[in-house]
């Protein structure tokens, strides 16, 4: 079972290399390889997910690679969304070629980078070495720059440039933080233990000099926080999410920013028992992220930018949970991470369906699409109601968990702010849903003969919508998984 850690990221990596080698001349070959690669990767990830969320810890190469329930959960999400996004990409990107937005010969490049991007994200969940974690997190950025700017028009290139420069500079701060952590741990570990291992660094977290800890935490928050879309380092996020092809937007928002959070959990949370200021810092950044995100949401007319800022708000909720530093808070943070991956990718996929059918993405240019695209409309309703945090949808359960955790942790002000943001969220989402899918369709859209999207696109949306509803109605189904993931976080934190 342990060797499957290797197959988890080697499978998509090999598929990506094969696509670059043989898939660039034939679109069908590239699509087939990508689809096969994501199916096999999903099967491997599912096996790892089941094993790790039942309490097993997988290790390889003297624990240089290590997967526990948290890694297993995130790897499972990445593989699931990777599979859905690759299916979705086939009709979506073919249409982009048909309308002339992309040249047909570039499809191999798209699928090649897509698979490499998937491989880097999966690899990030497996490494237990602080420098390799940094290398792979930077790898996720490098693998996705070309995908963000894939349309290669003015807006896409601008988004790709901002994405590349901001994340690369941000991650250089994280490198300084990682090196400081490693050097601080090196001075403390004894008996031939490898101070590069995250699990070993965590064991001596309380022995490191306070100045080193604080300096490295600030550097890591800037670095991995930029990756996670934390305010004020979030400015790349709306541009990249909006300008990338929709399946990539779904991957960026659904899972890539979560990989940044994962890195923060592995490197910053280990100091919680010794330096309470660290958790307060995470909480404050979380609340700031949440408030700025919801304010910016209100100012958007472009559907994809709107969803991008909604991701910023949601990252605020996740960081809030992690910053509360109690069991329920971290449980709620991981719960919201899971829910946000499902509901936000669903939202992007359904917005992609709108773009596919209408070629419009401005809210003011849309309306009444529910009649013409009933499946996409249902998917969009589920996504928006879940993101808005309405009862019987998964977003409500995780947000409610966070509200309770805030009060229990002694931060009622955080709960008050979070509730206010949630109310605003509901109002914004109901307004948006009405504008896009209800009412009367504009004449130009009626004349264009809008149709529902193909099954390769709506199939994945229905699966995600079902999961959002299932978790919303019967949250106990994910409780054991979340408990194991939360326990895995606490298991790597040394206690004073």
């Amino acid at each position: 079972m342990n060797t499957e850690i290797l197959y988890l990221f080697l499978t998509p990596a090999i598929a990506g290399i094969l696509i670059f080698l043989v898939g660039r001349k034939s679109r069908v070959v590239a699509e087939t390889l990508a689809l096969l690669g994501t199916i096999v990767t999903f099967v491997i990830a599912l096996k790892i997910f089941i094993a790790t969320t039942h309490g097993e810890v997988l290790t390889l190469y003297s624990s240089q690679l290590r997967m526990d329930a948290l890694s297993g959960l995130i790897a499972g999400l990445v593989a699931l969304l990777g599979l859905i996004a690759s299916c979705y990409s086939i009709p979506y990107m073919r249409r982009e070629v048909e309308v002339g937005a992309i040249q047909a010969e570039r499809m191999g490049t798209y699928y090649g980078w897509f698979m490499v991007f998937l491989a880097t994200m999966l690899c990030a969940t497996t490494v237990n070495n602080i420098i390799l974690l940094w290398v792979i997190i930077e790898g996720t950025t490098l693998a996705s720059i070309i995908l963000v700017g894939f349309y290669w028009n003015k807006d896409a290139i601008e988004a790709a440039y901002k994405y590349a420069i901001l994340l690369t500079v941000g991650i250089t701060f994280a490198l300084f933080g990682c090196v400081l952590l490693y050097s601080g741990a090196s001075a403390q570990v004894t008996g031939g233990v490898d101070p590069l291992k995250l699990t070993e660094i965590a064991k001596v977290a309380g022995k490191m000099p306070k100045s080193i800890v604080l300096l490295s935490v600030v550097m890591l928050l800037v670095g991995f926080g930029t990756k996670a879309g934390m305010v004020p380092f979030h400015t790349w996020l709306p541009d990249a999410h909006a300008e990338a092809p929709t399946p990539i937007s779904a991957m960026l928002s659904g899972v890539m920013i979560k990989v940044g959070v994962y890195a923060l959990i592995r490197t910053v949370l280990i100091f919680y028992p010794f330096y309470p200021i660290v958790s307060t810092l995470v909480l404050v950044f979380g609340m700031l992220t949440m408030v700025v995100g919801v304010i910016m949401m209100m100012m958007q007319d472009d559907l994809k930018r709107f969803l991008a800022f909604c991701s910023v708000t949601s990252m605020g909720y996740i960081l809030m949970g992690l910053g509360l530093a109690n069991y329920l808070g971290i449980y709620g943070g991981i719960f919201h991470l899971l829910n946000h991956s499902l509901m936000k990718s669903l939202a992007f996929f359904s917005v992609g369906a709108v773009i596919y059918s209408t070629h419009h993405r401005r809210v003011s240019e849309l309306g009444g699409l529910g009649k013409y695209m009933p499946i996409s409309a249902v998917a969009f309703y589920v996504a928006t109601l879940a993101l808005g945090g309405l009862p019987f949808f998964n977003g409500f359960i995780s947000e409610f968990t966070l509200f309770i955790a805030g009060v229990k942790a002694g931060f009622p002000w955080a709960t008050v702010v979070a509730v206010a943001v949630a109310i605003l969220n509901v109002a914004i989402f109901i307004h948006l849903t009405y504008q896009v899918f209800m009412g009367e369709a504009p004449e130009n859209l009626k004349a264009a003969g809008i149709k529902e999207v193909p099954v390769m696109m709506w199939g994945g949306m229905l699966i995600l919508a079902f999961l959002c509803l299932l978790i919303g109605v019967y949250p106990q189904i994910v409780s054991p998984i979340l408990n194991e993931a939360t326990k895995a976080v606490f298991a790597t934190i040394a206690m004073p």
Partner: protein
Amino acid sequence: MQEFAKIISTISLSMIITSYLIIELRNLKYAAYVYMIQAFLMCTLFAIFAIDNPGLYYWAATAFVTKVVIIPWLLLRYIKKTTDREFQPLIGYLGSIFLISAVVILLYRVTHSYIGFVAPSQFATAEPFRTNLAVSLSIFIMGLYCILVRRDAIKTVHGLLILENGVHLSLVTLAPALRETALIGIVTDVVIAVWILLYVIYGIYQKFGSTDTLQLRGLRW
């Protein structure tokens, strides 16, 4: 290591001077050549530190291949494809030199005086490691300054490279026992990042007609 203290100090000072030149030279090609010299100086420093710690010879060799050969080659290749004249910066020569000098002198003094704040062990507070750490932090800040105030996209890449050199240099003091695999991982990321960034900047040049980042205003709010 004490017998090499003077050479180490001279090379460290030269690294600060080369960072100044990379930032202030308006000809991007010359700035790339100076970057090559700075990278070579860093390799020399690694080689000197390797006398006590032979593992660092690998670092010197890796840094030479990536930072003295590959990265300058990439830079010069893309500068040839675009332009070698830096787009008018936001702050002129005098203002820039005054500002950056003030920041560097202040940071260097603070780091050198309060080295215990960033040094993980007693060993790191002794010379020449103390100077190495102060110089690397100063170079890091100079790189950040270059990224923040320069409007030319290729100059921003130069800033990023200075920033990376600052971190790389600090590894001698902070992580001298770091394995070659980790180091190769770090420098590979840097090379790929520079290559992809230059590729995107070439796209900016083709679509916008220049490498001026102030033109990138299509996406706001």
